[in-house]
């Protein structure tokens, strides 16, 4: 048995930022969360919720579809936010407790690569969770659509159907094949990524995962405040009031702009420009919060 050199040793004077290392850490983070199996409990819960919603038959097709959309979107919103906050809050403390962080950071790995890998892994995982839930949501909707349409037709074919029946069927399609649903889910995902980044930032200085979760809970509950602050700071007469409100809207992300569940259920149309500007806001907020977290982590004593 010999210990031969893997590659000729080169004297390097610098080490550049490496996306490959970030990717290694990201995939490892996904493996971690997936193999911990907590995720399955969450997903099963979501599946059950979506599945169950299709059994609530309502008085009218309109009510029925609304309740399904409402339940499913709410499930996606809750689950992604929960996984984002709870999952991310556990990452750093468990690394520190298990001392795995020592072995990683004593390899030629930048701290920012480590943190980015963690955030990217979690975001990627949430992407899959969102896709899985959306596919299920779509399946529930399509099944229900089929049932409702055949009920409306009552044995006749679509070509022979009377105008009122055609109108009903079109109304059903308007609900189930609504592009606003996809926009809403997309923004929920953007919110989840923002929450991941923010939780990671908090956990760089938090003393435990519980601490991070509680802080994030407070931020989550105060989010409506940010929406109000965002709207009224310009009309504040005093400078102090303005600065105070600006501070609030800076510290607390405007999450309600990303959760359009109620609007979509109420049948409001979501403009593409709105989606773009909100995504831009979310991306910028995510980036700033990440940068802050990376800065704190850089100085952290391990």
């Amino acid at each position, binding site marked *: *048995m010999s210990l031969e050199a893997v590659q000729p040793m080169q004297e390097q004077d610098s080490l550049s930022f490496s996306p490959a*290392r970030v990717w290694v850490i990201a995939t490892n983070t996904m493996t971690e969360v997936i193999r911990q199996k907590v995720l399955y409990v969450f997903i099963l819960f979501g599946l059950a919720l979506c599945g169950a919603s299709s059994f609530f038959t309502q008085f009218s097709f309109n009510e029925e579809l609304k309740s399904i959309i409402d339940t499913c979107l709410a499930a996606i919103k809750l689950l992604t936010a929960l996984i984002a906050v709870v999952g991310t809050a556990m990452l750093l403390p468990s690394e520190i407790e*298990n001392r795995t962080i020592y072995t990683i950071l*004593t*390899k030629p790995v930048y701290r920012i690569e480590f943190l980015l890998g963690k955030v990217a892994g979690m975001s990627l995982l949430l992407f899959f969770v969102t896709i899985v839930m959306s596919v299920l949501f779509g399946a529930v909707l399509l099944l229900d659509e089929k049932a409702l349409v055949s009920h409306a037709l009552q044995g006749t074919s679509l070509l022979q159907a009377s105008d009122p029946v055609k109108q009903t069927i079109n109304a059903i399609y308007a609900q189930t094949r609504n592009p606003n649903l996809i926009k809403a889910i997309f923004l929920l995902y953007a919110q989840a990524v923002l929450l991941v980044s923010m939780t990671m930032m908090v956990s760089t200085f938090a003393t435990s995962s519980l601490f991070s979760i509680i802080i994030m809970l407070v931020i989550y509950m105060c989010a409506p405040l940010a929406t109000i602050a965002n709207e009224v700071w310009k009309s504040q007469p005093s400078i102090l009031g303005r600065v105070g409100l600006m501070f609030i809207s800076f510290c607390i992300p405007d999450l309600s702009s990303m959760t359009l569940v109620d609007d979509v259920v109420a049948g409001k149309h979501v403009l593409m420009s709105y989606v773009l500007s909100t995504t831009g806001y979310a991306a910028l907020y995510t980036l700033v919060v990440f940068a802050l977290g990376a800065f704190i982590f850089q100085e952290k004593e*391990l």
Partner: protein
Amino acid sequence: MYAVETKDLTKHFRIGLKRKVIALDHLNLKINEGEVYGLLGPNGSGKSTTLKLILGLHQPTEGEATVFGRSSETVVSRLHVGLLPENPYFYRYLNGEETLRFYGKLCRVTGPALERKIDEILELVGLSQSRHRRLAGYSKGMLQRIGLGQAMIHDPKLLLLDEPTAGVDPEGSIDIRNLIIKLKKMGKTVILCSHLLSQVQDVCDRISILRYGKKVLEGNVKELLSKKDQFQFIASGLSEQDKRAVEELISRSGKLESTSHPTSTLEDLYMESVGGTKII
């Protein structure tokens, strides 16, 4: 250039608002390339803290450490370093092979070279049979072995081993000792923290003993342990008669096998230097 050099390396830990612990106090070390260097000392004397400072896991309160001439605070200084931390735990959800693959990829070892290296290292640390088992089910000694494996995955020039034999069975202990000797033959530098004095005595070229974060003794193991002012004769085939007057007669009637300085054990030396130290 030294493999590791520390200049007045000092580390204070704040505990609470006012109190602080002086974990390391103006430590100066110069460790040559290719040397096996032992760090000894009672519990809490600052051995692990020294290693962490050398690897940039802690920032020094004062002074500095360099690795192959590069400041410990830079990431490039870690290119050729492997650490086995004390009581290592790894990702419980990975198996032995996946663990090594993960660390290998982090060090940009990839492809067939990585797979070859993984096989080689699993063989070397004696875990070939358990390569597909999750680390959650590994025993303490097995974790220690996989820890040693991940420290060597990128073939570093410098290895820092914090109590590598803690929890390892006697045979494994001997394997690790032999491995260290092999590493030395390959020209690697090894810094070893250990409480197993006989092992340190066997493998280390030089040692230093720490106490309350200060270096109280440093030197070449052989020189430290030999008693210069005394002589020792090993004689055989001495007649009964001559035995009585042995001091004068050895060279006349017996055959002089060897003369040397008697050596004390490292244990004696250690107890002399730091015996009775209270843990603070």
